[in-house]
């Protein structure tokens, strides 16, 4: 049985002592090393995974920086990433019941890798408690992709986030974190033939981004009742998590939630953590894979985080199943 995540706010001023492990990504975005470089993360082990594709923009300088800074850098494909995560985590496997502290910079990880990491963490067979800080470096506004490449994957982000409903006759409801790719959310919602749609609009200090999100989703938003258009604060991930979790708690009583986290990656983290709590919900990914346009992201200097403890308790999972079973005919 997998662990249950317990999510709390991340407070940078209370981060004392070294982490056991820090995981970052060597991506092509300028922000890929911002957290590692500016926050000076102290950790006993520091790993950075590099991508075998799209070695463009700042990839070369990021690779140099991580290597010179003493990180263990491995180039791994998506299909190898699960195995890489297990290897990296085995470096800090505790001997006794000591808590392990991990920090993960999700800014330049793709959504599949974020899912694999969370899935690996929740399935660790250690006795120890695992505390994880998910950090995210907010980027400056950059223009959306000029041309959408065809999707290679539309479906659950990975098999273990497919969800499992006990009542397959319950229609799917889409919970969509909006991004700024034109009509991407609309297409996904139409594709899954959602019975109903809830949207999450990122409320960002980055005004042009919010405007771009609204523009890109104009057609979709016109058809959603205002009460089902929610805003979430990008700069307060814990509040976003609570908002999302409370909505899913309600939806699982009568529908199968399908979470589509486009937009800022911290929302993907929230969606995946919520799905860990409510196994009837699934998290989907719509991706063009490595053929998607590589857009550089420049850091704003703002870093947000979410603190998560992966517990071995199953109480909340059982609660979800009870919800599903208790709905009267």
């Amino acid at each position: 049985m997998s662990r249950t995540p317990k999510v709390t706010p991340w407070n940078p001023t209370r981060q004392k002592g070294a982490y056991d492990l820090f995981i970052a990504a060597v991506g092509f975005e300028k922000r890929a090393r911002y957290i590692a470089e500016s926050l000076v993360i102290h950790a006993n082990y520091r790993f950075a995974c590099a991508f075998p594709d799209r070695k463009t923009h700042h990839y070369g300088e990021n690779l140099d920086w991580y290597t010179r800074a003493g990180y263990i850098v491995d180039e791994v494909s998506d299909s190898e990433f699960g195995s890489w995560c297990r290897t990296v985590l085995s470096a800090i496997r505790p001997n006794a019941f000591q808590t392990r502290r991990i920090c993960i910079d999700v800014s330049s990880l793709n959504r599949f890798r974020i899912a694999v990491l969370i899935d690996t963490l929740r399935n660790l067979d250690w006795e120890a408690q695992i505390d994880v800080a998910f950090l995210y470096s907010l980027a400056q506004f950059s223009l959306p992709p000029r041309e959408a490449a065809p999707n290679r994957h539309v479906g659950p982000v990975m098999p273990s986030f497919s969800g499992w409903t006990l009542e397959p006759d319950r229609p799917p409801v889409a919970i969509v974190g909006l991004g700024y790719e034109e009509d991407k959310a609309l297409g996904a919602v139409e594709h899954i033939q959602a019975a109903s749609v809830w949207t999450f609009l990122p409320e960002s200090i980055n005004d042009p981004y919010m405007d771009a999100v609204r523009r890109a989703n104009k057609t979709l938003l016109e058809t959603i009742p205002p009460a089902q258009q929610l805003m979430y604060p990008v700069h307060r991930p814990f509040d976003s998590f609570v908002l999302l979790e409370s909505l899913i708690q309600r939806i699982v009583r009568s529908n199968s939630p399908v979470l589509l986290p486009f937009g800022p990656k911290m929302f993907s983290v929230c969606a995946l953590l919520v799905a860990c709590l409510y196994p009837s919900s699934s998290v989907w990914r719509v991706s063009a894979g490595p053929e998607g346009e590589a857009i550089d992201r420049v850091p704003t200097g703002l870093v947000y985080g979410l603190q998560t403890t992966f517990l071995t308790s199953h109480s909340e999972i059982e609660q979800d199943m009870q919800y599903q079973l208790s709905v009267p005919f």
Partner: protein
Amino acid sequence: MRAPHAPTIFESFNARALKPSQVAETFVPSKHYDQLVNRNNTIVVGPRGSGKTTLLKMLQQQALEAWEHGEADLFRSRIDYTGVFIATDLSWGAQIQALGDGKLDPESHKLLSIAAFTTHVLRSVIIAMLQRIATTPVSYPFRRVTLTNTDEVQLVKILADAWHIQPLIPSLLSLKQSLSVRLLHIREIASSEVTRGESGRANRLAEMTFLHSHFVEAASIATESFNDLIGESGARWTLMFDELELAPEWIQDELIRSLRTTDSVFLYKLAMSPFSYSARLLELKSGKAPVVGQDFEQIALWYAEKQQTYEFCYNLWKAMLRERGIPHRDPPKILGRSYFENYEEDNRRGSGYGPESRAAERFATLAQNDVTFRHYLMEKGINPSKLDEVPKPIMDSVVRKISSLVAVREYYRAPDRERTRQIKRRTRKAAIIYAGAESLFAVSEGNPRWFIAIVGRLLEDWLDEGRKIPAEDQAREMKKAAQRFSAMLRTIPAPPSKLLGTNRGVLSLIQAIAHYFHDQVVMNNFIAEPSLTFTVDPNTTEDMLYMLEQALNAGAVVYIPEEESELILSSLRSKRFRISYILAPLYGLPLRLGEQVSLNTILRASTDMDFDLSELPFVAGESNE
């Protein structure tokens, strides 16, 4: 009696989201429903949104008990079976596919996915039984029966034994919940087997007897026992499978084979998309294939020709006005007449082609602006300013025939005098030529989801009921519907295609075909019989076929069957298709069938798309037209 919950726009487009009683609120019986209620096996075929789910849901008891239409009693009297609706959707399909997180061997995965589906079927049977014995008051009680407590206990004991299940208490409701728990159990088995590994797996799974139940046999024990206890021995039950292509392949194959069984306690009503791998079982030449007209009937929920959509759209139109409390008016009274049609009342001289008619103006304008059209008219001896004087044979064989082409060409083609080095498209923001009742109906393709989306919005915004809905508003809503549809097409995952290049998928392929047809009608020299349909070449590559299959099932291309009996395809090769009219306002296409052209020819001609034509198989003797 209105449902307490008003559907949102997404819910109202999608019958799956609605309770059967909500579906019944606005349901208008059609010839399709008339065919479906017959006491026979039926395959309902149609692309997404074509109304398959609505039709099946209207055979459920809850729907029939809430249905208030004038003909409802007549239909209720014809239905002497119990409908069991087995819902499926993309996310449930993905869940079954993901059992064991992709780490189980194929045999174990198949066993567990079939067991999950079987559990879902049995649960649906119990839900239908609970409806039969319900005591809640309804408007039109239908086929309700009484099952005594003793009989219910006996029934549950029989089923618990047969299905290897232990409900907490001997009631049907508890049995239903136990089946939900079994679904949970199946997932746990899958996860556990991943952890335990392959060694000994076959034996472990073999010992779990409930994993090996056959869904038809298990369901028939339930229905026969129920029938006996309520004194209806031999009564029929109808298993209705929605979105059959999302079920595990083995289940699909079993159901197709089951259509041949004549002594089954079950009737089958299967909803399928036009393309399905299972259709290969309908094409077997060994005499084992179920035969249309003999073993089952087919209902096609799409229309190759636009005229066929009118009756369905008209009835839906009436229902939508009624639902909104708007007194009935014929569609042209509110939407106006189609731009493409020519009506006698349009001019003083009683002919649709008189000097002041819209058609005459278009012919004259185009002749003035387009030298190739002028030459064509001259060849035919037609004076565009005296169209009504054209002899009847030529009027029928030429003028009427090209009239809709002229309308599109005149609207979208810039005058020759404005061209510099090449023919220009006119910049037209609003596709108002598609406004008007007949055109709007054609653009909707008779697809209820699209029709409700377009007309629903128009009626919502229609404030001045003394006036027609402006053509601009109609064009805007049709374009929005087309954009929504395009967004969905863009989302469909596509395999890498060497021919199309890495940046193109299903939507790009559709665009290439649509642009070719638009050029045929608007940009190239005028011809009276442009190609507006395409055939898929026998040597079409697998990646292209996959994209076309997806486009067909989504409704982006429409199959034009040569034989009425061949509605479900297991291969698209050598078949003929047209682009859906829902896309016509985006690409400037006429709403009519035309000549056919091979797909390879279209792709070769799509020079602006930068395709890698070296990837296009060459067939000796094939013309480039």
